[in-house]
């Protein structure tokens, strides 16, 4: 057990630290947090980071990545954090969507899409959830019908789509065969958000800002080159995407730049004694998320695929952050809700649903990690159009 850097890693860290020190004046002011409204300064910063090899470090070199591991990514995250600088703008694109394209795309698709995504020139969004299917994502209804002379016609609606308002492309899950059970008739498409028939409508969130959207697809025509992976094998592609999402959960604390002490700092010299135990419990959980992240990273570095248990860290983090903000506001009084703490409370309670709800995560982990028997299901073996 060793948290210290190997010699090559220490050299890598020193190089990153130096680059950040030399370039920090180009960084936008403030943190991107989970959502940004004015994206241009962050886009420019991503480009600079990408050109220096600090974005997509785990991607293969042929697509502009560095061919390095999660550990190097973690080093970059921690150095960005140490310097108080934001990372890449398009966390979802770089972290989840592009790796899915790398895993399942044709060489044309990779050549066309990966570099502009890496540089921040083209932002991507994930078009999975729908009004009638979120947790049960295999239940989506957006239809893609093959045209007579090839190509596809798409109709349907997506929702909760983060960054759709900024995106050049979206990775979309659609139903291509409703006559088979729900997981089998799905296909993933790469959709240009500028295509005729795509309409993005912002949805204002409980935080007050609109970071996610509704996306309507009305007779959107796509060529065959838009299909990612095989037709009717979209579930496999979607699962790859969710696996990469887990990769990202592992280093979540570092990525959003949070310290275990963040809820204690505002209460220095003014912590009412009756709140001490609750604050302790928040700090303990935040520390646990950090060191669980180190454990998970070590597993990945040892060649294991991250399991669903990474989701436990997300549950702990969201829960601790909400309790932490409540302790802070309780100590500082009602006006503390008007600023960052009120915003954080709202954002975190919303995030409880993003990336899998607690219930879905607990079910998946209970079955896959503890080996508890699955729930009986009514929908698995029957054709989707007969449900």
């Amino acid at each position, binding site marked *: *057990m060793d948290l210290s850097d190997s010699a090559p890693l220490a050299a890598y860290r020193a190089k990153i630290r130096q680059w950040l020190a030399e370039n920090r004046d180009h960084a936008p002011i403030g943190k991107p947090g989970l959502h940004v409204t004015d994206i241009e300064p962050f886009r420019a910063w991503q480009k600079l980071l990408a050109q220096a090899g600090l974005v997509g470090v785990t991607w293969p070199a042929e697509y502009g990545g560095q061919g390095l591991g999660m550990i190097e990514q973690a080093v970059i995250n921690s150095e960005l954090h140490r310097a108080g600088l934001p990372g890449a703008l398009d966390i979802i694109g770089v972290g989840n969507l592009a790796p899915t394209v790398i895993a399942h795309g044709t060489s044309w698709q990779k050549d066309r899409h990966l570099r502009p995504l890496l540089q921040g020139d083209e932002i991507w969004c994930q078009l999975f959830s729908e009004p009638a299917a979120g947790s049960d994502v295999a239940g989506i209804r957006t239809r893609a019908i093959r045209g007579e002379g090839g190509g596809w016609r798409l109709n349907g609606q997506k929702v909760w789509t983060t960054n759709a308002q900024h995106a050049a492309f979206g990775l979309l899950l659609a139903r291509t065969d409703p006559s088979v059970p729900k997981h089998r008739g799905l296909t993933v498409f790469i959709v240009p958000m500028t295509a005729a028939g795509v309409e993005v409508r912002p949805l204002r969130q409980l935080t007050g800002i609109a970071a996610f959207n509704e996306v309507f697809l009305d007779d959107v025509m796509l060529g065959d080159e838009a299909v990612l992976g095989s037709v009717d094998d979209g579930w496999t592609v979607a699962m790859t995407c969710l696996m990469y999402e887990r990769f990202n959960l592992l280093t979540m604390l570092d990525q959003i730049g949070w310290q275990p002490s963040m809820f204690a700092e505002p209460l220095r010299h003014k912590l009412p004694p009756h709140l001490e135990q609750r604050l302790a419990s928040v700090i*303990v959980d935040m520390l646990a998320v950090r*060191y669980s992240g180190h454990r998970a990273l070590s597993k990945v570095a040892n060649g294991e695929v991250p399991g669903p248990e990474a989701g436990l860290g997300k549950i702990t983090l969201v829960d601790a952050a909400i309790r932490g903000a409540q302790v802070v506001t309780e100590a500082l009084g009602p006006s503390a809700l008007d600023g960052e703490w009120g915003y954080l409370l709202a954002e975190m309670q919303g995030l409880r649903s993003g990336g899998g709800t607690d219930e879905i995560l607990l079910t998946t982990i*209970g079955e896959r990690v503890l080996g508890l028997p699955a729930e009986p299901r009514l929908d698995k073996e029957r054709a989707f159009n007969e449900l």
Partner: protein
Amino acid sequence: MNFELGPDEELLIASVREALSRTDTMAAARNALDGAQPAHLWQEAVRGGWTDMPGLLYGVLVLIECGRRLAPTGLLGHLTAVAALRPHADHPAVAAVLPGLLDGTLRAAAAFTPATAVPDAPGADVLVVDGGVVVREFTAQRAGGYDQSLPLGDVSWERGEGFGGDAGFAWNVAQTLLAAQALGAAEGALAIAVEYAKQRKAFGRAIGSFQAIKHQLTEVLRLNENARSLLYYASYAAENEPSEFGLAANAARFAADQAIDLAARRCLSVHGGLGATWEHDAHLYFRRAQLTRLLLGGQAAAGEKVVGHVFSG
């Protein structure tokens, strides 16, 4: 960077499990509640070489296994005392006892004033008080019988010899090892609950397929894993980041108490009526949960220290 267990550590765990499995410690814990002689596996500890551990992590791993089977080995007190003495091996008072403690011919316990309910004090040969005083002659009155598999003593003594040890360090080691033992029990309770949830049928299916049960058990897993991560952090900090050891040790203690509390209660309830019987092991874990959270300052003192360390750090 590697923050997971390596082959050496896995090997140690396997050998500890093997050695402890030779005694039915769960039955002994139950029978001792009715007055039978409690088991004591000090001889296994000596045979296994666990009395002399190269680093805190090894002690943590051994105590997790002891906790899992509620096996009293004396190591909670002994390894705390040894950790306090080891940096002062040249001091005559320490030199007189340390070799015997390391090879297991002597057994030690670690008391913190007021020296009541001192873990592993009954039958110990040496007492280390507040991490800095060696006491050779003392009486340890057995204290409490609620969980006979965790022997406690109220200690009194006349004379001791100071060796300039670090009380804070010894306290942090004690918190870490107590947390490790508690986590082991929490993992043991979860394991039997999961096994039962897979087998027991109700309403035509295994009860573990009901979300209410599945989610409760996965929630226990979450708290257990949090405690485990913090125990690794404490073990790492003890040797590599001394300034963080206090924060890490107390955080681990706090998390482990939370974990065993939930684990023991869920274990009992998942077993239904069976969990409410004397013959079932669930209440043995439940007893351990109730007792361990009161020891060495209790969970609240650990919480207070966590906050204190963050403010002073």
